């Protein structure tokens, strides 16, 4: 179909698996961190803010290298995980980790924007009506921020599918395992006569990204509608 080869489809599938897994794990964390940053008043808040945003300003290779040091078999976290029989480096799960870390600040920012748009006075009203903290979060805060959370999921998905530097550094390029679309494009360009493959994959990437942005835009519009009270 569309002149795509089985290898092309494998790259798309690997990208989707890597990105979906990354977002599934990162999104709840991003919501929690965004809530802490938007509503929390605690010492070390500035530090958390800086730490969360670091992947945005660091070269992706540095992030991938940092992950290697932390999660490598000899690393402090990686060594502990190895005891449990879990290995992340050079695996599909590792690719998700690298992509998820890179997309994390983007997701936190998107969620936080919608949390800031959610009127905290409504939470006071909910409190006066008898809602306890967790109840308030799930009945008022999260639904009000839901369009932003969905938008964060979509942009996070797109960012994870597009991540290159951190993924190739931490998870390497293993076709069918860690070779996502950008890695496949890069590999094709390294191959003599691979330009046609690279072009096909580039268009595929573009289609996926455009679809994600369209969905994100629709959801952002709903956030604005809801905040007009």
């Amino acid at each position, binding site marked *: 179909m569309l002149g795509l080869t089985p290898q092309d489809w494998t790259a798309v599938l690997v990208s989707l698996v890597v990105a979906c897994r990354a977002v599934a794990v990162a999104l709840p964390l991003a919501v929690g961190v965004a809530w802490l940053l938007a509503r929390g008043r605690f010492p070390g808040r500035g530090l958390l803010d800086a730490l969360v945003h670091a992947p945005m300003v660091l070269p992706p290779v540095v992030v991938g290298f940092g992950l290697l040091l932390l999660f490598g078999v000899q690393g402090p976290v990686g060594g502990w995980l190895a005891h449990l029989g879990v290995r992340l480096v050079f695996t599909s799960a590792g690719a998700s980790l690298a992509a998820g870390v890179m997309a994390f600040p983007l997701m936190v920012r998107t969620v936080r924007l919608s949390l800031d748009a959610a009127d905290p006075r409504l939470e006071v009203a909910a409190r006066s*009506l*008898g809602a306890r903290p967790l109840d308030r979060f799930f009945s008022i805060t999260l639904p009000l921020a839901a369009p932003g959370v969905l938008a964060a999921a979509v942009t996070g998905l797109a960012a994870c599918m597009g991540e290159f530097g951190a993924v190739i550094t931490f998870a390497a390029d293993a076709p069918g395992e860690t070779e996502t679309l950008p890695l496949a494009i890069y590999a094709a360009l390294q191959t003599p006569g691979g330009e046609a493959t690279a072009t096909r994959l580039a268009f595929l990437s573009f289609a996926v990204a455009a679809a994600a942005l369209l969905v994100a835009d629709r959801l952002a519009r709903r956030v604005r509608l809801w905040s007009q009270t």
Partner: protein
Amino acid sequence: MLAVDITHRSGDFRLSASFAAGPGVTAVFGPSGAGKTTLLSLIAGALRPDAGRIVLGDEVWSDTASAAYLPMESRGVGWVFQDARLFPHMSIRDNLQYGARRSLGRKRVAELDDVVSVLALSGLLGRRPSGLSGGERQRVALGRALLTQPRLLLMDEPLAALDHARRLEAMPYLARLTEAFSIPTLYVTHSLSEVVRLADRIVVLDAGAVAAAGPVWEVAQSCPLINRRSDAAVRLDGVLAGVSQGYSLVRTAAGDLITAPMEAALGSSVRLVVLARDVMLATGERPANLSARNVLPAHITAMTGLGDGVVSVRLVLGRGAVLLSNVTQDAVQALSLDVGKAVYAVIKSAAVEGARPEGLMDLMDD
């Protein structure tokens, strides 16, 4: 019975308040910046007082001496905000039931069907807050607060978002609401006419301190923040006893009052407001041949000089009803007015303000 005795500081502002509020409507009255909303936030539990106690019945809500503090969500207050604060992602029905679902275990004071019919909300239930007018939103907010089965109702200038005419029309309706569900209510306002029409008791706040507290008729005479105002007044509750072409007859504790025609059903309860400046006094024989149709026997029970040669006279009439009359020092001397003296209170029919209980839902609809 709500008992408040607290001090609280935020920035340069210092609030120090001590008062008690029983059943019925207690107005919290004062100019902007007097600390009314801060007081309400402390009672609701949104703020913790720096020092003091807040107690409802036998339940301690806040006590700095014993470090007791009941969180807002456990107090069971129905808080009606100036801005309705409806939840935009829920239907009106879900907004109304939000508090009701979380009020299990409290004594039930309001049922959904009653609230919906009293507030005329049946047509709104399926809609979202974004499509509602200001008046409609405020009605939903009232209903939501009532359905939380509150032990105390806090109203923070609920009519402030409405324009003057609508506010006047809405007041008798609010009065009916507080009577129908008989929940102790604190009603914050800086409008004296709302106080007179709605409240039984009043707490006057000025610059963070309680300037006066007590029955409205008493404070209306004794508190300089109120008695010097041209709209100082008292309320007479009565029943519409007769309607004729040119007038209405209202039976009150002060006696039968003739008022301008009212569009209310015979036998319905009405609230009349009589301004102190509209009450004349006469001594000696009962005056006749007056255009003022109401001549009621009364006794003077108190007199307070207001300055500028004006004296506020408190009268007791009929079955213990109280009226205030502002007269000049000159008149006091000419008529030898003094405490204990029997007089006639003379009130023009046209000067009696009657509050109609019906016909305001349309106006609250914007």
